[in-house]
C-alpha cells in the first residue's frame, strides 16, 4: 500500500472523488469531517472499491486547540502520511454572511480553521522533507464581488496562506498546490441560478490527483478559468465597482 493521504472536509463530493482517485492508486485514506455517519459510509465504500485502508476521525473545525491532537491521532492510526488535501469549505447564504457574526463563521471555516489544520500538516511534512499539501480554494478568491465577498475574502486569504506555505516548504521538498475550481456540480451549487461550464466532481478528483505529479503550483479547474479570471482581474477597479457581479 502507498502511504496515506488525509482528506479534510471528506464529506464533500469533490473530496469523495479525490479520495477515490488517490485510493485507486493504492493510497490508504484518512477522512476528516464532522459527520460520523457519512464518514463511516464513505470509508466503507473506499475500502470495498479500492481495497485500501480507510479510516476517519471527527474534526471540529471551530475548535482550533483540538487540531494538533486530531492530527497526531490520525498519524498514529495511519503510520506515515504522504499528503493532505483540504476540501472543507462553506458557502452558506452569502447575503446573510454580509453581517456578523455569520460572516465570521464563513471566515472561520474557509480560512482560520483551514489555515490551522494546514499549519500542523506543514510542520509534519516539513520535518519529513517530502509529500504534498493540496488546498482547494476558489476562483471567488481572485476578486471580491458584491455577491459573495465574505466567502471570496476567506478564499483569498486561503490562497495567500497556501502561497506562503509553498514558499516556505519549497526548501523542504514539499509540494503545495492551490486548486481554484470554477463551478463544480456538488451540493454547494445544486439548483443555483447562473451556473455555467459546470465540472463534475469526478473530473475534479482526477485532475487534483494528477496535479501532484505535475509542476503547476496554482491549478485552475477546468483550465479555462485561469483565462476567465485573468480577464476579470484586469478590469479596472473604477469600472469593476460599478458592475453587478
Amino acid at each position, binding site marked *: 500500500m502507498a502511504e496515506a493521504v488525509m482528506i479534510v472536509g471528506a464529506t464533500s*463530493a469533490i473530496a469523495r472523488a479525490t479520495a477515490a482517485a488517490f485510493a485507486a492508486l493504492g493510497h490508504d485514506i484518512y477522512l476528516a469531517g464532522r459527520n460520523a*455517519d457519512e464518514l463511516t459510509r464513505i470509508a*466503507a*465504500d473506499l475500502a470495498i472499491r479500492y481495497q485500501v485502508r480507510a479510516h476517519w476521525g471527527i474534526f471540529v473545525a471551530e475548535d482550533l486547540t483540538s487540531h494538533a491532537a486530531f492530527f497526531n491521532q490520525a498519524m498514529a492510526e495511519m503510520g506515515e502520511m504522504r499528503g493532505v488535501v483540504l476540501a472543507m469549505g462553506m458557502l452558506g447564504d452569502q447575503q446573510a454572511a454580509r453581517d456578523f457574526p455569520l460572516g465570521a463563521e464563513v471566515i472561520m471555516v474557509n480560512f482560520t480553521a483551514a489555515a490551522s489544520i494546514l499549519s500542523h500538516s506543514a510542520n509534519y511534512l516539513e520535518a519529513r522533507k517530502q509529500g504534498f499539501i493540496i488546498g482547494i480554494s476558489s476562483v471567488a478568491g481572485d476578486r471580491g464581488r458584491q455577491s459573495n465577498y465574505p466567502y471570496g475574502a476567506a478564499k483569498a486569504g486561503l490562497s495567500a496562506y497556501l502561497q506562503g506555505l509553498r514558499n516556505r516548504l519549497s526548501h523542504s521538498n514539499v509540494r503545495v498546490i492551490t486548486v481554484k475550481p470554477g463551478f463544480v456540480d456538488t*451540493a454547494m451549487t445544486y439548483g443555483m441560478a447562473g451556473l455555467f461550464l459546470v465540472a463534475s466532481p469526478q473530473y475534479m478528483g482526477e485532475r487534483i490527483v494528477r496535479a501532484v505529479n505535475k509542476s503547476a503550483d496554482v491549478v485552475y479547474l477546468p483550465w479555462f478559468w485561469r483565462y476567465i479570471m485573468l480577464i476579470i482581474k484586469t478590469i479596472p477597479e473604477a469600472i469593476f465597482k460599478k458592475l453587478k457581479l
Partner: protein
Amino acid sequence: MNKLNQPLSGWGRYPVQTCATSRPERYQDLQASSTTQIARGQGRSYGDAALGETVILTERVNRMLAFDSTAGTLRAEAGVTLAEVLEVIVPQGWFLPVTPGTRFVSLGGCVAADVHGKNHHHDGAFSQHIIALELILADGAKVACSATENAALFWATVGGMGLTGIIGEVSLRLIPITSPYMQVRHYAAANLTGVFALFDNAALDDAYSVAWIDSLATGKSLGRSVLMTGHHADAADLPSVMRPAAKSTLSMPFDLPAFVLNPWTVKAFNQFYYSREGHKTQPFFAHYSDYFYPLDGIAHWNRLYGKSGFVQYQCVIPTAGAFAAVTALLEKLAASRRPSFLAVLKKLGAQNQGLLSFPLAGYTLALDIPMRDAGVLALTRELDAIVLAHGGRVYLAKDALLTAQTFRIMYPRHAEWLRIKQAVDPDGRFASSMSQRLDLGVQHG
C-alpha cells in the same frame, strides 16, 4: 434542500416532463419532504415511473457499505449501480443473483421494479435474493424489511415502483462464479412453434435463456427466432487465451432521423442477425458483459428511435394461453408496420409474493415501438386487449400508456397493495406520474 427544475424522461424518452429535482449527497438527506415526490435511480425504466412533481435523484447516495467476500453478501446504498457492484464482486468470484439486460441501473430501481433476468425460470426475481432493505417512510422512520421482517411492507415495496417509500439500503445474496465468462449456445427456430418447442425442451435448458425474435417475419415464419442459452463458465473449461470484453466506446451522438428505422431496414437487419446468430450452434465462450449487456456498449442507444422516443411494450402471458397470445401480438405488430428493432421472448418461472411484481409462470414478450404518431396508443390498446384476454399483464417498469382500469385487472392484488400504501403513506407523499395515471395513490375522503 436546493431544487433544480429540469426536463426528465425514462429510457424511452416518452413522456418528457419538467420536474423539480433534489439530489441528496448525504444519507440523512434521503428523506421525504412535505411535497409529493418519487425516488429515481438511473432512469432506465422506460416510461413515467420515475417522473413526478418532485423527483429525488438517488445517484449520489451510492456507497457500498459491506462486502463479505467469503459468504458472498453485499450491503450498499440504493443509488449504487449494478455496473459498480460488478466491478467489485466479479474479480473476487461473485456475481449478481439476478440482472436485467443493462447494468446501468441502480439497486433501488432493481428492488422497486422487482426485476427479472434470463434466469427467472430457475432463480426467480430480484426480491428473492434480498436479505433485507432499509426503507425510509413518509414520516421519516427508517424500517428494516425482508421476507421475514415486516414482510407485508417488503412484498409491497418490491415491485412497488417507489411508492411505499425511499429504498435507502439493500443487502443482497450473491452467487459464486469461477470466471467472468459465460458458456453460450444458440439455437435457431424457423417460427414461433419452433421456439416454444426449444423453450420446452428440458435437454436444452440452461441457467440462463432468452430468445431474440424477428418481429417483422410473417406467415409461416412468424416468430422466427434465435434462442440463446448460457451458464457461468467454469474457469477450468476456458481456453488459455480468452478474448477480453468488447470495449464500449460507441455512442449515439445524435437522434437518428425517423426514416432510418423503417420496415425495410429493420427487416434487412433482422435477416442478417438471424442468419449470423442462428448459426452459432456450437457452444462458445462470451464475456459476461457481452452476454448480459449487449446494448450497454452503445451509450445513448435510445436515440436510435429518434427525437419522439419509443415505448417498450412488455407483457407476460400465463403458459396455457401463451402461444396463442404471442401469435396474436406478433401478428398485430407486423400488421401495424411498425418496425420493432428489439423483440425478445423469454420463459418465466413461478410468481413470487410481490403484490405488484410482474413475473408469473408463462412467457414474456418485449417489443420496442417507436412513438411516431398517435396510432401507437391505439396499437397498444389492441395489444392490451390480447394480453387481458389471456390473463396476462404488462410490466410497469416499461409502461407509459396503460389505463388505470386495465392495470387493475392485470394486477389482481392491487387492492391489498393499496391498503399497505394507505397505512405507510397516509398523506400520499410518494407519487409519480405513473401512480397518478394508474390510480395508485392514497384515496382521500
